């Protein structure tokens, strides 16, 4: 790989062999120093959160860079019913809104990506416009809708309201995925007399596994991380989601801030996301960029 870098950056000017080699070596060294700096900038804060989460009492205020393997913060956290309840709520809400968005999104994406249909373009633009809506703009109207549905202060209020975030997103990305799939198989199935729905469920769906996985994961992250609706539509502690629980975690005064516990909660909430993101890294990048670069 380093060899590739060398040939790609070979200068047009002529140097003696040894000068050339020194320049190349310096350049490669510079590249790795730069990459290391980027990694420290991006990862150190999370590392520091892990280190701090394993310290308690006075150890928290000393600056040792190594974790001290004291798990009392985690023990306290896992015995905290509000936090554990919030974890369950967050998981349920994010999972349910993602599933609903995927089903509706796949149906819509098939129509928008495959069928000859002139209003399709306008609908796609409307979907994109909804996804850039500031959430606060629909807040009072959403309040009323949730009241009508009788869902105020219930986690299901969030499943409904998160559709405004996840639905445009899944529709948009799945549409661009479907457009990229080859049409031959479908045409053959249609000639054989399959219905459109059957073509979608039996021909396209098996091909869309990776696309659905990455879209679903991104939508899950979107819903898991949401803050404004979760703060507004949920009143009592036992129905809260994790971001709000962490956002509202404070001590009795500014000087009794439970930083150790906050860091333990932060690490716990982020860990499953990081495992998922690092496992599906390639697919996530494909999903994120396909929507943006082509759109």
């Amino acid at each position, binding site marked *: *790989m380093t060899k590739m*870098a060398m040939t790609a*950056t070979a*200068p*047009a000017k002529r140097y003696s062999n040894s000068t050339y080699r020194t320049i190349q070596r310096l350049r*490669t060294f510079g*590249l790795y120093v*730069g*990459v290391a700096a*980027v990694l420290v900038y*991006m*990862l150190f*804060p*999370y590392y*520091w*959160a892990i280190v*701090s989460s394993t310290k308690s009492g006075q150890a*928290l205020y000393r600056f040792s860079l190594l974790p001290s393997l004291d798990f009392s913060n985690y023990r306290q956290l896992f015995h905290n019913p509000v936090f554990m309840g919030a974890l369950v709520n967050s998981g349920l809400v994010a999972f349910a809104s993602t599933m609903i968005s995927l089903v*509706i999104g796949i*149906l*819509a994406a098939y*129509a928008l990506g495959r*069928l000859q249909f*002139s209003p*399709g373009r306008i*609908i796609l633009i409307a*979907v994109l416009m909804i996804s*850039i*809506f*500031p959430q*606060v*703009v*629909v*807040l*009072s*109207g*959403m*309040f*009323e*809708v949730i*009241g009508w549905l009788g869902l105020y202060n219930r986690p299901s209020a969030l499943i409904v309201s998160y*559709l405004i975030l996840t*639905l445009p997103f899944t529709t948009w990305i799945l549409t661009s995925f479907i457009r990229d799939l080859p049409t031959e198989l479908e045409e053959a199935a249609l000639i054989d007399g399959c219905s*459109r729905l059957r073509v979608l469920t039996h021909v396209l769906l098996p091909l869309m596994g990776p696309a659905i996985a990455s879209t679903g994961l991104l939508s899950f992250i979107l819903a898991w*991380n949401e*803050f*404004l609706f979760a703060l*507004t539509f949920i009143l009592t502690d036992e129905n809260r989601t*994790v*971001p*709000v629980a962490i*956002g509202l975690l404070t001590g009795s005064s500014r000087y009794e801030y439970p*930083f150790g516990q906050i860091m333990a909660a*932060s690490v716990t909430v*982020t860990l499953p*996301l990081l495992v998922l*993101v690092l496992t599906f890294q390639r697919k*996530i990048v494909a999903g994120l*960029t396909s929507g943006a*670069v082509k759109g």
Partner: protein
Amino acid sequence: MSAAERMQRQQSRTAWLFLLPLIIALFGVAIWPLARSIFFSFTDAFLDAPANYGFVGIDNFIAVAEDPVFWRAVKNTLFFTVISVGLETLLGLAIALLLHRAFVGRGIVRAAILVPWAMPMVVSTRIWEWMLNDQFGLVNKLLVTLGLVEKGVAWTAEPSLILYTVIFIDVWVTTPFMVLLILAGLQLIPEEIYEAAEVSGVPHWKRFWSITLPLATPAIGVAMLFRTLDALRMFDLSYVLAANNENTMTMSIYARDQLISFQDLGLGSAASTWVFMIIGLIAIVIVGVLRLDRTTG
């Protein structure tokens, strides 16, 4: 009716059928709530009894426009958006150029930079709040040890610093997104152009200015558009760091405050309709500029 026409019509009917769930769902969670929010802006309703209202014309819009706190929030939001999107773009471009080169472990590094992006904003805010704490924060400890400051700086409390702290955290969180989008743009540039330039002896900096930058501009433009619209509606970072502190209050925080803290449905809806109009106007201007760029370039 010809066979082609019949097929066209049948396809269009199927398309509507497939789109029906989407249209119903988006009507219920987006279009209708938006319409109701705009409707409430013209009333004097309160949140505890929304059915009990009278029409007050544009009084609410005037009341919001006459509130200096609202304009403070608008100013904060615009300042935050311009500075952080600008910094994110520069930093994102620099990191993307670095990661575009071939080196050992490139795949792992590209995965690792996703970490700040995947975290909930609340968590990132809390981690930086801890690192920037005036007494026990690592950053201040480092600055004091290096002799740069005499005692810890209150990054998250000092009124003149807090908005910059918000910008700093936002840049950390969203730079990975910028890097990803710009990297995808860089990968679309054909290698041959660079090879040709190299053979003709075009120097490095000139290759960057006349090949990389112009060809990556569409990707950078789209990334900046997304980020700008996202920054304009920012809520969670400022709220977790400073609640409704006027120094960091954004338009979204102001509108929610009127609605929830003061229970004023009419005024809060008018404030959010103002936010909608301001962001809509900015979006139209940016999309116009991008279009113009595409047709002339």
